């Protein structure tokens, strides 16, 4: 399975990769903004994407829209510091499969990831 981690923080990208701890992931790509994420996804069509919202160049919700245009079945887990209901609902309406708030809780991350894998 291919995983794409999108976050403007390299520390967070590596923390997510470590935190997922899944033997089912065979390939991991990282992107630091929405534009890079779209390019990578168009090339490789990753099975699961984790997506930050507050990023330079292209924010996560705009990126999510474009990912859904490429593949409406894309599995996207939002991982954002924006801890408000409106943003979470908007992301889910746009097609996100889940929404986790930062700071990342490792147990919640693993659980959310397992749910996506089993979906």
């Amino acid at each position, binding site marked *: 399975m291919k995983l794409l981690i999108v976050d*403007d*923080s*390299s*520390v*967070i990208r*590596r*923390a997510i990769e*470590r935190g997922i701890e899944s033997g089912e992931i065979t390939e991991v790509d990282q992107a630091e903004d929405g534009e890079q994420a779209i390019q990578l996804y168009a090339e490789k069509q990753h099975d699961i994407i984790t997506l930050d919202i*507050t*990023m*330079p160049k292209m924010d996560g919700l705009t990126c999510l829209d474009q990912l859904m245009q490429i593949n409406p079945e894309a599995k996207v887990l939002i991982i*954002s*510091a*924006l*801890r*408000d209901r*409106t*943003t979470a609902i908007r992301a889910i309406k746009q097609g996100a499969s889940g929404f986790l*708030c*930062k*700071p*990342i*809780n490792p147990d919640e991350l693993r659980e959310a990831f397992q749910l996506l894998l089993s979906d």
Partner: protein
Amino acid sequence: MNDQDINVFISTARRYFASLEERPSLVIEPPFVREKLGPFLEYTGIIGVSGRSRGVICFTATGKMLGEILGLLKESRVDEEAKRDLVGEIANTLSGNAREEFGSEFQISVPTVVVGAGPQLSQRNGSRNYAIPLNWHSETAYLLVALE
């Protein structure tokens, strides 16, 4: 922004540091108001705020504290670049979490990071400069809030 609103930021700071270790050791001192925004330490992450409020939120910390946090995150790279990245990410997390209370109209920018001398930030009319001291593992960081 008033004294009550500052409690929102105290809560976000407490939540962040509690996420790092099983036995949280953060001690938050009473916030104080300064004529100018500060104090600034070695690394500062700056978030611009617009929408519901206007102004800036900064998280400023020593390299030693950021190094310890990187260790708790199991980050193998504890260099300058990782500390810059982390201080911006903490500023983003503390600011973004405040939307739980302030709502989605509380809009935040991507972080800007300054290393060394404190940033020169223009003072907005009607904003008070709050400093929230965060004592953690023998080091002190500050969450600085200057919002209209």
